[in-house]
């Protein structure tokens, strides 16, 4: 077997030396934090205009993560590019000639990119939270409150898992364009629209993003939130299953198909 530390180092160099991967991570960070901060500032000034029911179920932690709806798209792009550019550039042939053990190759790539996405995701999540709370003023919560730390760490996990899921999809489809063409509209539109449609939302709540994002919720029921048959960790578990399925699918394709 190829030396795993060597392959990990190689994959780290691959990520480090391409501008597109760092840019997507930077935008995931900036977009999430900036949009979250903006919405928090906006809400703080208009909070009193909200209907009382919404005021009662306001979840300041979840609200400070509002930027993630956009920021996660950059994470999707990151995940797709890490795997997809191997195919679109033709580098995959060179890479597999150097590391013919497909499992070592794919999982080293996923470990390196996944850890990086998790680190960036966690940083994003913490900064979004603290900045958001600062801007929410008297509506703010604190990290010491019950379940808040879990939600903030969960936000980082969510970002990382979204990237991992995208890597698996890109490995299955073997194309950056195709993967982005499916994942971007799915996360940005399809999933969010279906979640608002009666009956469809019973299915949509098992989608990776819908299920996974429950971890960021501190109050079990927030405004426009539905009751779901799983808790925050259950939701994350469902997302993990999705991620595992996509990664295994990607590995199966890599192993079976001609490079």
């Amino acid at each position, binding site marked *: 077997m190829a030396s795993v530390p060597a392959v990990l180092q*190689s994959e780290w160099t691959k990520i480090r030396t391409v501008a597109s991967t760092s840019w997507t991570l930077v935008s995931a960070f900036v977009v999430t934090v900036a949009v979250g901060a903006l919405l928090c500032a906006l809400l703080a000034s208009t909070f009193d205009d909200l209907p009382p029911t919404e005021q009662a179920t306001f979840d300041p932690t979840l609200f400070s993560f509002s930027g993630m709806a956009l920021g996660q798209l950059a994470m999707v792009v990151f995940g797709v590019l890490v795997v997809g550019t191997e195919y679109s550039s033709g580098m995959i042939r060179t*890479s597999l*000639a150097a590391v013919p053990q497909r499992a070592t190759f794919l999982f080293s790539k996923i470990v390196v990119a996944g850890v990086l996405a998790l680190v960036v995701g966690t940083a994003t999540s913490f900064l979004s939270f603290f900045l958001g709370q600062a801007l929410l003023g008297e509506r703010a919560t604190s990290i010491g409150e019950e379940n808040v730390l879990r939600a903030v760490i969960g936000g980082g996990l969510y970002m990382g898992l979204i990237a991992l899921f995208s890597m698996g999809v890109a490995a299955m489809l073997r194309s950056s364009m195709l993967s982005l063409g499916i994942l971007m509209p799915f996360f940005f539109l399809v999933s969010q629209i279906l979640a608002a449609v009666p009956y469809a939302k019973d299915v949509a709540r098992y989608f990776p993003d819908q299920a996974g994002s429950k971890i960021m919720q501190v109050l079990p029921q927030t405004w426009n939130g539905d009751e779901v048959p799983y808790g925050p960790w259950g939701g994350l578990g469902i997302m993990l299953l999705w991620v595992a399925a996509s990664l295994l699918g990607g590995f199966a394709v890599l192993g079976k198909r001609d490079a």
Partner: protein
Amino acid sequence: MIELEGLTKRFGSKVAVDDLSFTVRPGVVTGFLGPNGAGKSTTMRMMLDLDNPTSGSVRIDGKHYRELQEPLKYIGALLDAKAMHGGRTAYHNLLCLAQANRIPASRVAEVLDTVGLTAVAKKKTKGFSLGMGQRLGIASALLGDPEILMFDEPVNGLDPEGIHWIRNLMKQLAAEGRTIFVSSHLMSEMALTADHLIVIGQGRLLADTSMADFIHQNSRSYVRLRSPQQERLRDVLHQSGLTPVEAGNGTLEIDGATTEQVGELAAEHRIVLHELSSQRASLEEAFMQMTASAVEYHAHSAPGHGPQWAPRDKGA
């Protein structure tokens, strides 16, 4: 050493490579020839374990490719000049490969220097011309200083200096005892580079023989003579049972004789020779002869090839 045994690849109902068995030996440059669509690229990809064979196997020094610990130290390949990430610099593209196989980073700078890319090492490869991409690919093949090297159309996009360089490089690597396997469509280039030939057509082995034998078996060879005493020379040759043919410009050509034989004969009869050379057909002629006689190739030839190659443009 590369050994292929019964290698077969089917794409659906189409057989791209059909029960191919041959051995590529060290110490010589082995040329890999065949018309377009003969299965050369598929074969080379299966050699690197990029495509899965339908049946049969490839062994690199007795091992399957996947069993190789750090494959770049055993076998280096240039398959496709553009098989690098365009957004990465030449140096970093090679560094990733080096690290995966625990090759020291200093070696990266060295191979870049070898292929003459040092000045553009820090440039992103998407701006590279085909020739520069080719040089980068060659650098990646040399990276692990492997005993086996494979080159698919190595001179593609190179300028004359580059062509000359890669040819001498391949010969030198072979002379060092390495195994060199090179595919090309350029017969004139192959004739200068390869010592041994493997020819396939329609995925099947057509020839596995030395260059000299290949040309000898597939074309005419003869002795060319020039002499100020041509009349006497003719008589002497006729007496010895040889039939010289006048070939214009005062030269004679004799089929089925050796220069040694004719030289001795001339010396014996004190005839002055101004030329005594053995003539061979070109590799291209021999190749055309062979693929033309492989009837089934023509019968099923891919569109665009086959008998219609002869120009017959009569104008509008």
